[in-house]
C-alpha cells in the first residue's frame, strides 16, 4: 500500500471513529467505497471529502426511554458536580478592580471594564450553579425525564431571557476590556492583541454548538416521549 493510500485509509478510519451515531453508517459507506477507487490520489481526495460527514451531527435512530434517562442522569451528575468557573471570574474581577496594572486612562478603563464583566459573569455562574442543588436523585425515572425536559427547554429559551443578553454582553465587556487593557488603544494589533477576540469568537462558537446540540436533544426527547404516549 502506498503512503498516499495509507493516509487515505487513516483518514477514513478516523472519520468512521469520530462520526456521530446517526452518521456512522454513512462514514462506513464512504470508507467501504474507497476500496474500489483505483487511483491513490483520487482515494485521498475521496477520504478528505468524507470529513464533511463529521459536520453532520445526527443522533442514533430509534432513541429509547432508557437512552434518555441515561442522558438525563449524565446532565444531573454534571449539575451536581458544579464548577469553579465563578471563583475564577470573581478572582479576576477583584484583581482588576483593586490592583489595576496601569494608570494610563484607556488601559485603566479597559481593566475596569474587564472587572465589571468578570463580576457579572461570576454572579451569574454562582446563581446558576446553586440551581444544580435542585437536581433529582436519579431513582425516579419520570422525575429524571421531567428534569431533563425542563433543563433542555430552559437552555432552548436562553436567548429569550433578558438575563442571558446581560451575560453575553458581559463576555463582550471582558473581551473588549482585555484588549483595551493590553493595548491602551481602540486599534488593537492583529496578532499581539488577538487572544481576547479569539476567545470571544471561540465562546460564541461553543455557545452556538451547545445550543444546537440542546435543541436536537429536546427534539429527540419530545419525539420519543410522544411515541410512548
Amino acid at each position: 500500500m502506498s503512503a498516499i493510500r495509507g493516509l487515505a485509509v487513516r483518514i477514513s478510519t478516523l472519520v468512521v471513529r469520530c462520526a456521530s451515531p446517526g452518521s456512522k453508517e454513512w462514514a462506513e459507506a464512504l470508507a467501504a467505497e474507497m476500496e474500489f477507487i483505483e487511483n491513490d490520489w483520487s482515494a485521498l481526495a475521496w477520504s478528505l471529502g468524507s470529513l464533511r460527514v463529521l459536520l453532520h451531527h445526527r443522533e442514533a435512530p430509534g432513541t429509547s426511554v432508557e437512552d434518555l434517562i441515561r442522558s438525563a442522569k449524565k446532565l444531573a451528575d454534571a449539575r451536581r458536580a458544579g464548577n469553579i468557573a465563578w471563583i475564577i471570574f470573581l478572582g479576576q474581577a477583584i484583581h482588576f478592580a483593586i490592583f489595576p496594572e496601569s494608570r494610563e486612562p484607556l488601559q485603566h478603563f479597559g481593566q475596569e471594564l474587564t472587572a465589571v464583566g468578570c463580576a457579572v459573569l461570576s454572579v451569574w455562574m454562582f446563581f446558576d450553579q446553586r440551581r444544580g442543588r435542585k437536581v433529582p436523585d436519579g431513582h425516579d425515572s419520570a422525575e429524571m425525564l421531567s428534569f431533563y425536559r425542563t433543563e433542555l427547554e430552559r437552555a432552548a429559551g436562553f436567548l429569550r431571557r433578558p438575563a442571558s443578553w446581560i451575560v453575553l454582553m458581559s463576555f463582550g465587556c471582558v473581551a473588549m476590556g482585555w484588549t483595551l487593557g493590553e493595548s491602551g488603544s481602540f486599534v488593537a494589533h492583529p496578532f499581539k492583541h488577538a487572544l481576547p477576540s479569539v476567545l470571544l469568537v471561540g465562546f460564541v462558537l461553543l455557545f452556538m454548538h451547545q445550543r444546537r446540540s440542546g435543541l436536537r436533544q429536546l427534539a429527540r426527547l419530545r419525539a420519543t416521549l410522544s411515541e410512548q404516549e
Partner: protein
Amino acid sequence: MAIRRSPQLLSVLAEFLQSEGEWRYGYDIRRNTGLKSGTLYPILMRLAEHGMLETSWEAQVEGRPPRHLYKITSDGLRYARERLSEAAVKGAVGQPAFDGVGAS
C-alpha cells in the same frame, strides 16, 4: 432539515432518474455527476432522511468490503421530476454534470 435546492442536488436527482429503479454505488454516482464525495454524500444523506432514497448494504463478497447501495423511492422520483422540470423551466440545470463522463 429542508433539502437545499442546488445545481448539485439537481445533478444527483438527474442521475437517479437516468437509472430509475436500479441500485447505485456512491462512487459511480460521483463519477457520473463529477461531484466530490464531500458534496455528494451530504445530499444523499438528506435525500435518505426525507425518505426519497432507499439505502442498503450489498452482500459481502470474499476479500472485499460490502458496499452501500442507493435507490430512489417513488417519493424521490416524484420530487426529482418536479425539481428537474422546475429547473428546466428556469433554465438552471447544471449542464456540465454529464458532459464527457461515461456511464458506470
